[in-house]
């Protein structure tokens, strides 16, 4: 790989990588089992440079903000590289947000340019918040021939143009950046009350990449399956910067249907993949069904081999042995899989153990966008299913004000910590204290130096699908209901179900309704709640409600004291009080 300590910016490192491995394949794009694109590093460069030149010609200059809202595909990475090449700051946004949320974040980030897909752009144009985009440049990919794009331009025409319209000739000008300059603004939550735009520098990414690849190296010929959205800090790192700066290849799928995901492991002989727990559980379910369907003698033989593998790899993985013993299983994963990374949500240790017993390493970790993605990761030395691993090289992790059992708030200091939250000095000061990132997560270190997470101090709810949810965000949707006040909680936050269930169980979101004194439950209220619920993405929907008889405890600035309210509710109500919606 490249020695990233020698580089000042992502653009410079990527530019050298493209020159260093011109003939290696860097990108494969597949749609429903059909390969749509395959690019070498040289071809990637040939696609990106005209685009960079067009960006430059259109006035995207040093420090301009270039937003990308796309599903995982080759044009995502081509656009991102071109923007970094001309010195722009990337604003990668989650394509799964609603059009209104997209528009709010585009406004908050003050994006000068937007690269997006046709269906997303169409939704934005139809949203009530759609404002005049005339002062911004919008490039839309894969638009049908007669589509109405408003003021937007077609990505493909813009790219082919290569700046010719204004008479630019030759190569685009590469714009060097300093390590401390902004590389990306990454939103770690949706919109709602308070968008959290993490400003990450070039140094943050270069240091993170060095730390990760020291534990899980890439090299030419390796293939990373990119399933998590590329706007997500994890995929941006292990599905773009990491493999590219090591000469490895990224495989994009245009569909995440389980059958095509499974197929791609064998089709492209995948080396690494990062997943959210939900997808991993889906793979587990598929495997279990296959095992259950085996004829009895075969099943018996398989169980014996699995037992032998379990004994031989009790302390350390041994891929060679596992692939020999359980060849059929490994073949189903392409035969070259080295590790699956799981982050973004709490993972059920039983699932990690299930795969480990088959000789498939699931490396669970802990990370935050604010810390430049991964903070701890399992290194299989030894294997532990019940922790989030040890701090990565360069990460200082400590437990702030630990209690008698060593439990306290996880605090992090490293070169990967974000610079600040965009346009929010107050929140930045609360979050980064004397150079330490206060995560709001509760944890402790065990005797072997593994970090165990016990819960969330902050209000943030992480769903099984790896999504961060902020109650305030959802509460805005229910603003103005015919009640005195209302609040959103994760049911598990109010009534924890024992440690294992609390960490692994699916979170149900709950609407707490405080009616006016003596007010009966309005007859149309539930219909109204259901209607508003439907406007939310499915992972943000509330699943039930409770009626609460007292005013919510609030701070001086009228914020709900969530933990106090949760304690009061837990003391006088049980889960049985929850009415399903």
């Amino acid at each position: 790989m490249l020695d990233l300590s020698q580089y000042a910016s992502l653009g410079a490192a990527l530019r050298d990588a493209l020159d260093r491995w011109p003939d290696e394949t860097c990108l494969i794009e597949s749609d429903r089992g059909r390969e749509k694109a395959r690019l070498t590093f040289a071809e990637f460069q040939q696609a990106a440079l005209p685009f960079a030149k067009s960006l430059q010609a259109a006035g995207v200059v040093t420090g301009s903000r270039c937003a990308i809202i796309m599903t995982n595909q080759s044009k995502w990475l081509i656009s991102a590289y071109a923007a970094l090449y001309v010195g722009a700051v990337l604003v990668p946004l989650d394509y799964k947000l609603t059009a209104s949320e997209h528009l709010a974040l585009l406004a908050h980030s003050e994006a000068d340019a937007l690269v997006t897909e046709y269906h997303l752009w169409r939704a934005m144009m139809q949203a009530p918040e759609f404002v005049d985009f005339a002062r911004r440049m919008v490039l839309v990919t894969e638009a049908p021939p007669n589509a109405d794009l408003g003021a937007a331009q077609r990505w493909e025409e813009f790219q082919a143009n290569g700046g010719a319209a204004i008479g630019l000739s030759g190569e685009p000008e590469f714009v060097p950046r300093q390590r401390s300059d902004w590389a990306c603004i990454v939103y770690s939550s949706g919109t709602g009350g308070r968008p959290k735009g993490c400003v990450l520098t070039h140094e943050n990414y270069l240091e993170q990449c060095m730390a990760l690849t020291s534990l899980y190296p890439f090299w030419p010929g390796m293939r990373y399956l990119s399933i998590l959205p590329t706007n997500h800090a994890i995929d941006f790192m292990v599905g773009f910067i990491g493999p590219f700066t090591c000469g490895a290849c990224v495989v994009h799928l245009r569909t995440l249907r389980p059958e095509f995901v499974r197929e791609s492991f064998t089709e492209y002989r995948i080396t690494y993949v990062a997943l959210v727990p939900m997808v991993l559980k889906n793979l587990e379910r598929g495997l279990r069904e296959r095992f259950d369907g085996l004829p009895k003698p075969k099943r018996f033989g398989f169980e014996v081999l699995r037992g032998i593998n379990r004994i031989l790899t009790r302390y350390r993985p041994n891929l060679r042995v596992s692939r020999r013993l359980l060849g059929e299983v490994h073949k189903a994963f392409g035969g070259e899989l080295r590790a699956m990374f799981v982050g973004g949500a709490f993972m059920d240790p039983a699932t990690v153990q299930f795969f480990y017993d088959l000789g498939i390493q699931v490396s669970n970790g802990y990370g935050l966008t604010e810390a430049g993605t991964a903070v701890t990761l399992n290194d299989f030395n030894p294997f532990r299913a019940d922790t989030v691993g040890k701090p990565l090289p360069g990460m200082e992790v400590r437990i702030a004000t630990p209690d008698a059992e060593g439990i306290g708030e996880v605090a992090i200091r490293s070169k990967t910590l974000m610079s600040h939250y965009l346009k929010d000095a107050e929140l930045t000061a609360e979050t980064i204290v004397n150079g330490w990132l206060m995560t709001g997560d509760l944890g402790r270190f065990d005797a072997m130096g593994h970090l165990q997470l016990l819960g969330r101090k902050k209000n943030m709810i992480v769903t099984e699908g790896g999504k961060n949810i902020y109650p305030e965000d959802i509460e805005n949707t229910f603003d103005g209901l015919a009640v005195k006040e209302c609040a959103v909680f994760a049911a598990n936050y109010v009534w924890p179900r024992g440690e294992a269930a609390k960490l692994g169980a699916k979170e149900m979101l709950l609407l707490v309704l405080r009616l006016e004194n003596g007010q009966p439950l309005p007859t149309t209220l539930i219909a109204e709640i259901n209607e508003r619920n439907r406007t939310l993405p499915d992972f943000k929907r509330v699943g039930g409600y409770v009626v609460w008889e007292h005013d919510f405890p609030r701070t001086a600035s009228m914020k709900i004291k969530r933990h106090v309210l949760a304690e009061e509710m837990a003391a006088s109500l049980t889960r049985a009080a929850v009415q399903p919606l």
Partner: protein
Amino acid sequence: MSKPPEQTIDEILTLAAAQFKVARETLAADDDFFKKLGIDSLQALSLLTRLENHFGVELPDYELQGVSDFRTLAARIQARL
């Protein structure tokens, strides 16, 4: 000529019932299929392939984004017929 919308809904309900092994008559157009079938978003995606084959149209994953009831899904498919 495209199919009447009611027929599209009816065919989707039949296909969903077959895919998730429930009785056809237990499903209705306005059902929230996540709740009714107890499925997650990945399982819902796997229904798309069956619908594509049946209706002879391509349905990108995003057609399921923000959709949780059969009627809205049918409207999206109808627009592509």
